[in-house]
């Protein structure tokens, strides 16, 4: 197998095992749009990284995490609905990122690569970084899983019962920012949310516990990565788009499966 293909697969799988479980929390907490906002602001992070001459992925993680923390503290203030706030931030950040990128001198910036991903171009350093981030991210998620579930069930009740809600929420946002930053390599800014949401939504059909849903989401994400890269290789398709399309096909197939347990279980006791 060609080296670039192997690197692409490893990078894709690294992202999928983290984005699956995290995506479950995103849909349980109705935060899909929040993920999209983080992704759109990533371009600004990339531009700043180029201007300051630091590792782009690290710069991106730093900027996304800063924006995540900013969003948590801005949420629920000034009488602006959260989706309005996210929409304003999302598109302003994208526009500001495009302008900032125009100021970067001397570097030929691959805008299409950032917008749509370029998984076939990931280098050995990227693979190592994605692997490390995925391992650390999964560890952090396992550590935070129970409090995150309790917050997803009822935030106020969790607070009354002593869950440090604000700290856990910020940690979750940062984790989300991190997964967005590494997923950019794979599917690009415009398709990152798909990698979070679609495998998790497809997994819901087969899951009876939060944990099995998280595991299925990781597996479905991995299947999408393998199928997408395969299709891209064989039919010369854009790889990021192919991955998202395979995930969407899995979702449609999951919805079509008759009698999926979890949703059909009646009230019979």
């Amino acid at each position, binding site marked *: 197998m060609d080296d670039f293909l192997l690197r692409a697969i490893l990078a894709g799988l690294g992202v999928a095992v983290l984005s699956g479980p995290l995506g*479950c929390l995103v*849909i*349980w*907490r*109705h935060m899909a749009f929040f993920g999209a906002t983080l992704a759109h602001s990533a371009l600004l992070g990339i531009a700043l990284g180029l201007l300051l001459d630091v590792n782009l992925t690290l710069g991106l993680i730093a900027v996304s995490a800063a924006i995540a923390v900013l969003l948590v503290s801005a949420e629920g203030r000034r*009488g602006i609905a959260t989706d309005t706030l996210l929409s304003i931030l999302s598109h302003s950040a994208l526009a500001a990122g495009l302008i900032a990128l125009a100021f970067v001198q001397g570097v030929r910036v691959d805008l299409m690569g950032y917008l749509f991903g370029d998984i076939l171009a990931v280098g050995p350093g990227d693979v190592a970084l994605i692997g490390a981030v995925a391992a650390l991210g999964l560890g952090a998620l396992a550590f935070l899983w*129970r409090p995150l*579930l*309790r917050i*997803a*069930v*009822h935030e*106020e*009740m969790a*607070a*009354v*019962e002593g869950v440090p809600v604000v700290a856990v929420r910020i940690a979750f946002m940062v984790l989300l920012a991190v997964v967005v930053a590494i997923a950019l390599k794979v599917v690009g800014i415009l398709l990152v949310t798909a990698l979070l949401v679609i495998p*998790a*939504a497809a997994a*819901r059909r087969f*899951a*009876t*516990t*939060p944990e*099995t*849903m998280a595991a299925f989401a990781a597996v479905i994400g991995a299947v999408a990565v393998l199928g997408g890269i395969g299709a891209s290789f064989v039919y010369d398709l854009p790889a990021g788009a192919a991955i998202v399309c395979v995930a969407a096909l899995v979702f449609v197939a999951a919805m079509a499966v008759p009698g999926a347990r*979890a949703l059909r*279980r*009646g*009230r019979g*006791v």
Partner: protein
Amino acid sequence: MPGLRRTQEDRVVTVPGPSANTVLVSASAIAKSIAGNPVLSDVSIAVHGGEVVTVIGPNGAGKSTLLRVLMGVLKADAGTVVRRPGLTIGYVPQRMEIDAALPLTVTRFLGLSCRDPARIREALNEVGVPGAGQMPVQALSGGEFRRVMLARAILRAPELLVLDEPLAGVDVAGQAELYDLIGALRRRYGAGVLMVSHDLHLVMAETDNVVCLNHHVCCAGHPEAVSRDPAYTQLFGAAVAVYTHDHDHVHDGAGRVVALGDDHGVPDHSHEHAPATPVPESEAKERVRGG
């Protein structure tokens, strides 16, 4: 009827423990505005160990806000809130909107508070929904859900049980059952109860102290006294205030009046509701007018 399991302790009048006179939570002269609108002003309230305090008031009177301030979820703008150090609170919120995409059975839901499956089964038995363990939480009816929430509260062994409209979303017959369950649990576990209701008569029998709230405390005291207070009458209208005790019957599914038995209103009573029995015509007529 999914009743409360009878046990010996249940019939014993709880002797006030050492905690009976300790203040679990108290607030004095608190004020709270939300988005610039004053919601609470000069509100004082205290809940002691083993005591049932009911906050009543019309919609938008600040009842839930008061609970949040007392539990420490919201900070008061002015005044002081004192909670006993290390106080364990069992909170039953008014609503829970758990996303349908979250696969969560009742047992797993309770497992978030308690890791012992045997205790979870026991608690579900105790609140009268022994078969609910494998049901998705989203599939529970209003009454079943409240019972599960009470089971959850039991598992936490709280010193203070905070119930926000515990009877909302439950049909009238279910309300009476649920209400008796709350009383029995309180007697068995000796927890202080702080509860919000918009209907004094439903909760009167088990309540030691009523605080009538409409942004400020309109009147407070023993339920019988509050129901005759002019401030209460003004807030809720004379039509409601005429009845001193509304807990002598329930309506069945067809709207017929069903007697509950004659021991209601007696403190520390303990019973199971009899199955639906016909009620004398005269009483039924009278109740229809009132209800």
